[in-house]
């Protein structure tokens, strides 16, 4: 039996977070209680009628009464979400997916988040007994999210933007690379990352190079969100090197990076 539920969640708050980013707080005790870091919910966008698919969003924050989503307006569905009002009811399926591995004792956690990918990382960071280091990247200053949340947990915060408008100029994985050469040297690091494919592929290459474990959370277009439609697959390999399709919604969204067979189509700038 899965622990997912189908809940009609009441909108407690829906507000702009920054520019194209918005926060959606939903009352859904069932999902909230069951949620684990790195899991997601599959949300039915109201008033989207000719379009029928739900949209997946990481559980940014959760407690025994609510969950909070942090989302970016990027297309049809997330644009339609703008019209969600306080008090509306929204159908929610979740929590879904495997989530990040917990109880990773004795490691120094390094979190890497690109854009809205950071939303997947807050709950994870919170459950580590000791603070780690977080690398937050984005195209420009507006895309750097949740710095305060990590600072409040006493994490080392490293920022980078492609245009240099906040933190160091460049890719977040470049920043990570130089950290490994300095501050990060000699630590028993495990990486936890969520962001665009290019970033995750670069993280994979770094982890392989340094012999570190890296847990990466993938972002694919989804149909059902629960494992029945086989739409969200990515190529994975098992321990023996046999390749098979992994369902991002079910076996994922989090995979140890060596499990992923990256396609040459995914560009890495780093």
């Amino acid at each position: 039996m899965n622990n997912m539920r189908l809940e009609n969640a009441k909108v407690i708050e829906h507000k702009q977070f920054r520019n194209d980013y918005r926060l959606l707080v939903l009352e859904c005790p069932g999902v909230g209680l069951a949620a684990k870091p790195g899991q997601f919910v599959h949300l039915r966008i109201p008033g989207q009628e000719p379009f029928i698919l739900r949209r997946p969003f990481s559980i940014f924050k959760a407690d025994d009464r609510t969950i909070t989503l942090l989302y970016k307006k990027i297309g049809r569905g997330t644009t339609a979400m703008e019209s969600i009002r306080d008090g509306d009811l929204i159908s929610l399926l979740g929590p879904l997916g495997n989530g990040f591995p917990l109880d990773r004792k004795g490691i120094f956690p390094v979190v890497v988040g690109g854009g809205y990918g950071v939303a997947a990382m807050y709950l994870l960071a919170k459950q580590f007994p000791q603070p780690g280091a977080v690398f937050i990247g984005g195209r420009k200053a507006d895309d750097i999210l949740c710095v305060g949340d990590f600072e409040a947990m006493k994490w080392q915060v490293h920022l980078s933007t492609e245009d240099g408008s906040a933190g160091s100029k460049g890719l977040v994985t470049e920043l990570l690379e130089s950290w490994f050469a300095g501050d990060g040297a000699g630590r028993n690091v495990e990486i936890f990352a969520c962001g665009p494919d290019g970033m995750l592929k670069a993280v994979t290459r770094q982890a392989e190079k340094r012999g570190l474990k890296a847990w990466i959370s993938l972002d694919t277009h989804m149909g059902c969100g629960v494992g029945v439609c086989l739409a969200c697959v990515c190529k994975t390999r098992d321990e023996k090197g046999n390749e098979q399709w992994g369902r991002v919604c079910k076996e994922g969204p989090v995979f140890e990076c060596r499990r992923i067979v990256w396609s040459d189509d995914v560009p890495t700038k780093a």
Partner: protein
Amino acid sequence: MSRPRLETCVGAIRMKNPVMVASGTFGYGPEYDGVVDMGRLGAIVVKGISLEPWEGNPPPRLVEVTGGLVNAIGLQNPGVDGFVREYMPFLRQKGVPVIVNIWGRSVEEYAEVAARFDGVAGVAGLELNISCPNIKEGGIAFGTDPGAAARVISAARKATKLTLIPKLSPNVPDIALFAKIAEDAGADAVSLINSIPAMVIDIETRRPALANTTGGLTGPAVHPVAVRLVWQAAKAVKIPVIGMGGISGAREAIEFMLAGASAVAVGTANFTDPSVTAAVIDGIEEYLVRKGVGDVRDIIGAVRA
């Protein structure tokens, strides 16, 4: 009035109500466990199974369009053995008729898959998928050629005693012909429609939205086409017809039954709302009460056309 009877039959399969889930939209059962009360369903139709495990198509496999979606999963599946080992134990304990959707790349493969399921405990029937638009060999090639359809259905018929339900392709000018071919070849019922071949192009990249180039359209957009096909098929044959395509509530299901379907299947709408099947069952019951109809079978084919 006492509650209306919802029981219906398809071949030797007795269903507590006419509402099943469509192949490929409900996995092999366990995935929706905890959210869908499977015990309420009339039957479960599992995702298409072939002799050996099958990889399917590369992603992207699915794209959303107005009123539906276009998919090209390509029949990925764990093969007969993998399916029976991994999923039949779960399915058996649900107490709901299990219909296995099967396919092959040749007449012989279809027959062999059918034969392999013949003895498997808990399997109530086989839906013969001769209408999948998303694979190169097999599938729709059998469903749009009268001779090939006759051969593959006859071969499967000889290979199994299970209730046999060829799933017809919508992509033919004369569906009545294919329904009759199925009936003559010994099928116990026919089901329709499978997805309608379709294509979406991303105008920014100039590439097809699906890696397989084309896919199959399903969801509300296809419903009026599906009702027409079910009506034409049901008029042509005496065996039961299972109607599907675009059901998202009781209204669409009732349309299929009025058009002649003895049972219906809900596909794409499960993705939109996993509780849709319960709503369809309740809605049919309410309709019967409202109309003073005591038995759901009385509305089968009752359209006044």
